[in-house]
């Protein structure tokens, strides 16, 4: 048997396809027939130094894949499967794995450490394998060969990556950190050990909270990390800087004493070290900026000191030295970096960091950057002109308009002429991008002194439209600039927008761009359509007739994508993408024209044609549904209202397909949103389709494959359906109500959870409450309201417990108090006594009545009214 496994594992990596396929098949069979024996022989294979390295590696890999998967539900199944294995089998496997750590073969050791970490990830939270960490650490305590030490440290690193800090005792954490820091120490002569230790530290930083509060221990860790940044070995320096980056976000508030030293280290690395290290050094400062931006945003200038995290203004303090350092990096551009999607170099990292610094310190950065810009912007070397422009573009977000406006007014003409005349594409690319930033941050209804006036608007548009004929990467940035130019006028309302006179010209130019031969490069076509969308969104009533004219044009384009036949998979992909852009554009147009009665009626003449195009787009695919087309359908249903009924029969199968799409959960989510649109459009005419829709929604809810973010909106859909079909919802009550009830119980308490879970819990609560709201309102004035009575006590209890938990966000508060009103409104006097008996309804209501939040107050007013009506009957 053992012999056989080796051969099969080798065959599974054979060049010959049939041999490989056959081997894979036998492995699969083996696994299905006898899992314990399969796993045992794999671990035996991995542990056996007499076996070829390739079979050992694959054995380890299959073992690892038998323990973990990317998809949540699959992962859960695998964990359960491992836990239920016979414990003697598991013990044997673990012994083999630990034994492999001493193997002279590096690949076998490395594979074994990953498998050990996976098992630890499963078992430690269940208090199993408690001896693991001690077993690993005994390797270090006793003198062991270097390769074993290296494997042990690597295992500890992986282990810390897999396991959550709260399942490891502080005592063991201390031991791990001691071993790791010891391995990182400059006195460690073996680079492999030092690298493994440094990488292990990176993963174990999350475990070190207690150690970082202890000055001595922290000092020691920081010293070792800083020393490691000076190692002669590049990989160690890089890994050490990675540790610093991680520390900067995890232990920001502990960094004060080390900042001077770290500045020196990072400055030296940025100036002198090789790029992978220099990039990490820049990243350290970007990460510090992220931290300070978060702190300053969250506490919005409230420096009273009661906030949890204080801002230490590291960036501000380092500013005079940091800015010149970053400006130097800007001159290290690579040729053609703008054409390379995957490019990431020191100049890009430095410019990005400069932008973050500007957001962190605001006005202070301007005088530090201006001299660099002035000195370089007219230099003959393109690098200098580009660096100066990039520096300018980078600091446009952060400083106040007061500080920037006068500078921008001067710069604007320069930029416009550079975009037309500069001989270098790179400079033009950055110039167009900078113009876009100017429009994004310094133009719009909130800016007091407008940068763009009737006087210069025409020139700006002329230059941008001209630039849209330039090479793809420049044209793409010009589209982007136009996007923000249009966006700045989104609030002009019915008054005239300065771009109105150019509307037709702009639209024509954008459509021309989409037809360019090279529009596939630098995402130019996408940018052109996105800009067209924004121009339409921000258009005024005056140009509505021109938007109407766009409808047949875009429909024609969409029609053409459907004519192509026998496409290669590459062409198919392109067709799919183009259909997405066109459906997206139609969606925007539908929403725009549907918003006012006169334009809606004009648009309606295209409804039949448009719907048949959407249906054909759906039909292009066999198993999945086009997300953009689905989004467009939602807008379309909203605009057409009851008229949509006539399309329903044909559309329904795609609708169902969208609701079944677990894998692409975005598609499922979008389709769930469309359920609501269709309910509101069709009202009771949706009834014939409700059995199918409800079945699908209930399946979605019970699936553990479906991404959890889709579930709250599904609950809201119950409400939409009930509101649309009223008492006909009766037949779904027996399915929907228990589901809502158990979800409500789960979501009532989120205490102690982290922010992300609380946020999700609140989304879930809101969905559940919207469902209740819709159901109550749907049944109102029907003779069947009594059917809801049995559920009322639980719902009131749910509201009570939400009120007690005190962790509702404003949206949930608003919905919750509304549900109390809906319940009283529909159940009348029957509900009155329940509400009177409830623990906290009165307090909850009073709190909401005096809320500052307009929407909460409005809902509370409603509830008060409904309750008082219920009580006075």
């Amino acid at each position, binding site marked *: 048997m053992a012999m056989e496994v080796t051969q099969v594992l080798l065959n599974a990596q054979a060049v010959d396809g049939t041999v490989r396929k056959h081997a894979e098949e036998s492995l699969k069979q083996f696994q299905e027939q006898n899992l314990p024996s399969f796993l045992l022989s794999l671990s035996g294979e991995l542990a056996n130094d007499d076996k070829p390295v390739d079979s050992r590696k694959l054995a380890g890999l299959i073992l690892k894949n038998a323990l973990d998967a990317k998809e949540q539900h699959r992962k859960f199944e695998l964990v359960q499967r491992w836990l239920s294995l016979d414990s003697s089998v598991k013990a044997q496997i673990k012994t083999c794995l630990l034994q492999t750590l001493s193997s002279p073969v590096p690949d076998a050791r490395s594979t074994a450490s990953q498998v050990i970490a996976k098992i630890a990830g499963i078992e430690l939270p269940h208090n199993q394998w408690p001896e693991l960490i001690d077993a690993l650490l005994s390797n270090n305590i006793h003198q062991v060969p270097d390769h074993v030490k290296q494997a042990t440290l690597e295992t500890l690193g992986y282990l810390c990556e897999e396991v959550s800090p709260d399942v490891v005792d502080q005592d063991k954490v201390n031991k791990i950190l001691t071993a790791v820091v010891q391995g990182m120490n400059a006195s460690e002569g073996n680079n492999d050990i030092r690298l493994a230790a440094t990488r292990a530290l990176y993963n174990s930083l999350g475990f070190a909270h207690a150690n970082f509060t202890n000055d001595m221990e922290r000092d020691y860790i920081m010293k070792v990390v800083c020393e490691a940044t000076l190692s002669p070995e590049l990989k160690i320096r890089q890994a050490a800087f990675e540790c610093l980056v991680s520390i900067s976000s995890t232990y920001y508030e502990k960094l004060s004493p080390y900042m001077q030293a770290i500045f020196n280290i990072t400055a030296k690395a940025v100036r002198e070290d090789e790029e992978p290290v220099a990039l990490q050094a820049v990243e350290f400062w970007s990460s510090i900026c992220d931290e300070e931006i978060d702190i300053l945003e969250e506490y919005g200038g409230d420096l009273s000191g009661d906030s949890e995290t204080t801002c230490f203004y590291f960036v501000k303090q380092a500013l005079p030295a940091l800015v010149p350092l970053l400006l130097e990096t800007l001159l290290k551009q690579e040729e053609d970096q703008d054409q390379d999607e995957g490019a*990431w170099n020191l100049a890009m990292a430095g410019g990005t960091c400069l932008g973050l610094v500007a957001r962190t310190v605001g006005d202070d950065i301007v005088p530090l950057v201006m001299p660099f810009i002035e000195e370089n912007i007219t230099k003959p070397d393109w690098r200098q002109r580009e660096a100066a422009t990039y520096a300018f573009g980078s600091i446009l977000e952060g400083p106040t308009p007061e500080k920037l406006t006068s500078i921008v007014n001067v710069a604007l003409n320069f930029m416009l002429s550079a975009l037309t005349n500069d001989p270098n594409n790179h400079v033009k690319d950055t110039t167009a991008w900078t113009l876009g930033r100017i429009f994004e941050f310094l133009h719009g209804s909130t800016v007091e002194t407008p940068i763009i006036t009737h006087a210069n608007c025409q020139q700006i548009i002329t230059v941008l439209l001209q630039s849209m004929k330039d090479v793809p990467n420049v044209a793409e940035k010009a589209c982007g600039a136009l996007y923000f130019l249009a966006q700045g006028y989104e609030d002009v309302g019915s008054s005239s927008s300065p771009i109105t006179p150019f509307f037709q010209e702009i639209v024509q130019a954008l459509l021309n761009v989409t037809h360019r031969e090279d529009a596939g490069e630098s995402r130019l076509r996408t940018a052109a359509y996105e800009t067209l969308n924004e121009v339409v969104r921000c258009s005024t009533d005056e140009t509505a007739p021109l938007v109407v004219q766009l409808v047949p044009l875009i429909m024609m384009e969409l029609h053409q994508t459907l004519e192509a036949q026998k496409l290669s998979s590459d062409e198919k992909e392109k067709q799919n993408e183009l259909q997405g852009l066109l459906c997206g554009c139609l969606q925007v147009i539908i929403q725009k024209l549907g918003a006012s009665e006169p334009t809606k009626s004009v648009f309606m003449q295209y409804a039949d044609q448009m719907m048949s195009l959407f249906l054909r787009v759906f039909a292009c695919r066999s198993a999945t549904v086009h997300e953009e087309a689905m989004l467009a359908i*939602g*807008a379309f249903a909203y605009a057409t209202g009851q008229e949509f009924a006539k399309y329903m029969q044909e559309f329904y199968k795609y609708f169902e397909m969208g609701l079944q799409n677990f894998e692409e959960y975005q598609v499922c989510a979008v389709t769930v949103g469309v359920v*609501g649109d269709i309910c509101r459009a069709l009202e009771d005419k949706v009834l014939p389709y409700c059995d199918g829709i409800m079945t699908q929604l209930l399946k979605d809810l019970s699936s553990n494959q479906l991404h959890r973010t889709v579930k709250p909106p599904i609950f809201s859909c119950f409400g939409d359906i009930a509101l649309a079909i009223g008492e006909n919802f009766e037949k779904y009550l027996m399915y929907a109500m228990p589901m809502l009830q158990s979800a409500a119980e789960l979501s009532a308490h989120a205490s102690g959870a982290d922010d992300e879970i609380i946020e999700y819990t609140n989304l879930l609560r809101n969905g559940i409450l919207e469902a209740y709201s819709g159901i109550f309102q749907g049944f109102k*004035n029907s003779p069947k309201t009594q059917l809801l009575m049995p559920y009322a006590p639980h719902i009131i209890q749910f509201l009570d417990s939400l009120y007690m938990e005190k962790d509702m966000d404003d949206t949930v508060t608003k919905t919750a108090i509304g549900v109390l009103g809906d319940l009283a409104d529909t159940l009348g006097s029957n509900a009155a006594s329940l509400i009177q008996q409830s623990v906290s309804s009165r307090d909850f209501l009073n709190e909401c009545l005096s809320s500052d939040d307009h929407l909460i107050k409005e809902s509370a*007013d409603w509830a008060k009214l409904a309750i008082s009506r219920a009580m006075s009957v």
Partner: protein
Amino acid sequence: MPPRDLRRPFKRPAISDQQKRRELALLRQAQNRRDSQHQARHLASSVLSLQNQNTEPEAELGPESETVESEQETLSKDLDILQASKLKGSEARKWFARQLMLPEWMIDVPPRLNTDWYVFARPSGKRCFVVSSNGTTVSRLRNGSILHHFPSALPNGARTRDISGPAHSFCILDCIFHEPDQTYYVIDMVCWRGYSLYDCSAEFRFFWLNSKLAETGACDPPSLYHKYRFSLVPIYECNQIGLHTAYTGVVPYVKDGLLFYNKHAHYQTGNTPLALVWKDENCSQYVLDTDSNGQVPTQQQVVLDLQEDGRLTTSDDPPVVFGCLDGDFVQKSGLRPGSFVRFAVSDEGMRFVDGKLEMANIHYIGKANRARAFADSYSKVLFQYAARHSPLRFGDLIESVSSFSDLGNENLDVEMVD
């Protein structure tokens, strides 16, 4: 453990337009959901049942207009307030003519007056419904005709940018327009921001009125987008002090009697004994009814509704019959069923047994003013009769609240009367 990828977005907007489209779609869906939720909350419970109304007089007009009228009738019967708030022309007149709560006249003192009732001084002026919706405000008189069409600070009462909110966020107030200071005195709140208060107790309606009206700025002095001022009237518990304050207290308006509202009563369209009006010479210029020339006639006059079978009835539900006209007389006088007919009541012209009308001696005068929407109510006829003979005096009211409060217990009082 390979090095981490630390690439950050470079020269790209942070959010893709596709994501933006998704988010805008979600935003629109949330907004639409909120709107339909809103609408559901407003509408369903506020459908007014008009089926119980008296037969509509106009419905029995000549045969040529019959079909049209009855269509309108079914139409307006099925309306809820939101739809009604959009009605125009004669339909609106007909609908609104039936929506006011009309107090009965106080012929005797109701039990538990001091505990279950409010009292306030009624402003003298034109009783009307004020409806704000779709950026405008309309006031309609008792007969449904429009008094004013104007911008106001009521929710959705003027086309200004700052008064936002959905189109169905309308209001209906029960008011008296007081000419001298050009002010609408709000005596009741029927709908507020689209929420119906019909089914709420007077206690709650007054609470809501007091807490909500001022919030809108409707009580501010007139301005460009607010043509008439609205004002609250001071409402008192109907105890000795309250009654006294309402009767003698200084108010910025001319008084026309006292209104009494039962705290537990819902807003009920048409005549109701749960709201009462009382007046004497001290608190009203118009204790005795005037005739069509504005003079107090020597004999009391009543306006009655001529039924198909010739009976003459009051506007009450069920109607009280005062007499009968024979068919010949009806034809000769050019009257039609549904006409309002004016009669004189001779002194000693009514006889009562156990407080109930037993006999009325009335004389035909002629057709009543066409603008009228209703015949007189039974309680009005009796109050007018009593006012000419043995009026209920303020002292009687004071005595009733003090005797109640002295005894403190209604049961005891009942025993004593027995």
